């Protein structure tokens, strides 16, 4: 019981914050709303010299430079989309950890839904082809057998 109360108290008393990894105190912005946006954006920006890490996770110098750049743009008044565009303009699509919704990436994003659809179609088709075969395999009940079935079910 105390655990639940404690957990609930935790929720009420403390603002929900995203996990921070490699951000240094001297990089953090004073405005918490902007800082939260900066962190959310950082988690989607790739550290270009690391192996598959975001700038939020990485300790590399370039990651730090990019974190500062993101915050700089936010302070200058850019929207989230504008910050991403700015980075893509300078570093290419490679810098985005979430690929763009473009025509070239269509197959990537749609792979899941398409696979699900194809699978469902295959299942339905498979089931349809088995029905006639199943019906052909089953001999219908004779009248005698039907009466016995009635007796069993009702008595």
């Amino acid at each position, binding site marked *: 019981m105390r*655990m639940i109360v*404690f*957990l*609930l*108290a*935790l*929720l*009420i*008393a*403390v*603002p*929900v*914050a*995203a*996990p*921070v*990894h*490699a*951000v*240094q*105190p*001297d990089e*953090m912005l004073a405005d918490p709303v902007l800082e939260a946006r900066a962190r959310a954006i950082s*988690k*989607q920006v*790739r550290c270009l010299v*690391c*192996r*598959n*890490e*975001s700038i939020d*996770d990485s300790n590399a110098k370039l990651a730090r430079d990019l974190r500062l750049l993101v915050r700089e743009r936010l302070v200058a008044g850019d929207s989230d989309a504008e910050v991403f565009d700015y980075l893509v303009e300078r570093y*290419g*699509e*490679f*810098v*985005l*950890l*979430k*690929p763009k919704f473009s025509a*070239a*990436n269509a*197959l*990537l*994003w749609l*792979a*899941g839904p398409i*696979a*699900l659809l194809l*699978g*469902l179609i295959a*299942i339905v088709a498979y*089931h349809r082809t*088995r029905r006639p075969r*199943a019906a052909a395999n089953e001999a219908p009940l004779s009248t005698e057998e039907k009466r016995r079935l009635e007796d069993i079910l009702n008595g």
Partner: protein
Amino acid sequence: MIVELGHFALTLAFAVALFQAVVPLVGAGRGWVDWMRAAAPAALMQFLLTGFAFAALVNAFVSSDFSVRIVAENSNSQIPVLYRVSGTWGNHEGSMLLLVLILTLFGAMVAAFGRGLPLGLKARTLSVQSMIAAAFIGFILFTSNPFDRLVPAPLDGNDLNPLLQDIGLAIHPPFLYLGYVGLSMAFSFAVAALIEGKVDAAWARWVRPWTLLAWVMLTVGIALGSYWAYYELGWGGWWFWDPVENASFMPWLVAGALLHSAIVVEKRNALKAWTILLAILAFSLSLVGIFIVRSGVLTSVHAFANDPARGVFILAILGVTIVGSLTLYAWRAPGMRSEGLFQPVSREGGLILNNLLLAVAAAVVFTGTLAPLVREFFDGAKISVGAPFFDLAFTPFMVILIVAMPLGSLLPWKRGDLGRVMARLWWAAALALALGGVVWGVQTGGALLAPVGLALAAWLILGVIVEIGERIGLPRASLGTALGRLTRLPRADWGKFLAHGGLGLMVMGIAAVTAWEIEDIRLARPGDVIPLGGYEIHFDSVSEGQGPNYVYQRGHFTVTRDGEVVAVMEPEKRLYPVQNQPTTEAAIDMGLTRDLYLVLGDKQTNGEDWVVRAYLKPLVNWIWLGALAMAIGGAISLTDRRYRVGAAVRRRRAAPVAAE
């Protein structure tokens, strides 16, 4: 000398593997019993020889024989013995030898314990297994020989990467390999069945224990890797959708689908073609994973540094295995007649949905992992596919699966009624939604993750409870009878409840920690107090010292709550002088309801302040407890008597005596 003997043993193993790949298969085709009988002793021989080779390599590491090249590159006389042993597989060549050891181990186990198997099936299965083993032993002998000497031998080695000098990471590869290399056995059974042209309930019964064993090991291996990342990497992350993580996750998903599909084959004699395909796909994904990690084709924090020649060899193994097995499948699978009839709304239907969702989820991970490669191949564009993509693309399928799980578990075979099932589950659904609502209402900010995640997890766990009630007849029977039935439930049932419940625990942990984690990063000096969600963290002092092969700076913190001391935490920063590599050791105060996670950062230039990162992570340990529950559930299922096929043999021998 021992190293050379090991090398020789491996070469002999190669010869035996080639023998075993051909002779029993031909024997099975021609009906030559002697040739078929050669499979089992050959498999045991292969394992013994490979085992000796592996032991020779371990010996070289433990005795710090720096005249062996990989020992010089990956070990050092200063490191503790445990890490000298684990250094054996902490490099490309050694880990390939471990892989082959496990391939031959599974072959030997089937040879020794598969007494009930029909001779033809056993011979063919061991043959196929041996083909894979021969391919990989050949790979080792020709491109990645662990026994290469280094002349002149250096006086001391390079040292093992400090990140790998850790107990979790020492045992993570063996479990992982037992897992996704163990899936080779399911593959071999599947291909053998295709060659024979026969899949029946008995085949499914034989395949399941081996697949289950591999799946349990894979679960433990992945969980170990995740937990290691959590406490070692210094920021409490536990899953990064890194290509190598995905490489182990895809076989796990498909093996899960395979396990459930095999149930349908065994109980209802249906879904044969799909089950065979899943068995082939599971191991194919394992091979793809091996390729990804070792070919240098994808950048990842995990990858071994490698030259392209090895990549080409593995690609060849991959190509022949996958193309060969799928061609065989296309040719033979249509000839397999499934008999069981069932309505769409039935347990079979539920398991088909389960298969579909797991397979689609694996396909999403597969596409995401390989997309950068494919894009670069086709139009030269370099894109990144990281965690944000996977979180968005993968999660919906898991959500649908979790919603369906309690329903599917309760549906009867052949023909079910959703209305009746929902009637038994309505209170679980109501409670779950209520929990979601409470969480939504109470938390600040409108994020959906916590309410939805916790509601789903509660639905799953309560569904398991409803199912247990069903199985012991609770709403109708008296409590006494029900409890009696509880003690007599078959172990496979307990396995199912633990595994499904474990998944629920894991989802709860994931939702809680992702949504409600609190962090605090700041500059602090001894004497400061850091408030963190109801706790006070007192920064006492920083001391310096020396470990076996590193120097450290250690922070001393006392954590209090309402004035009472809760924990003393001592995070460290270490420097390993041989490779000049720094690492951070986070201090973690582990609890069932939360973890306190403390990291000491860099000292500032003013000489007084340190960067201190403090995290409060609610329910984070439920993630690994859930995974452990799943693994234990699987292990319990394995001990169920129905899987000991030998039991059938014993009964048959007893029957003639009784008839007299």
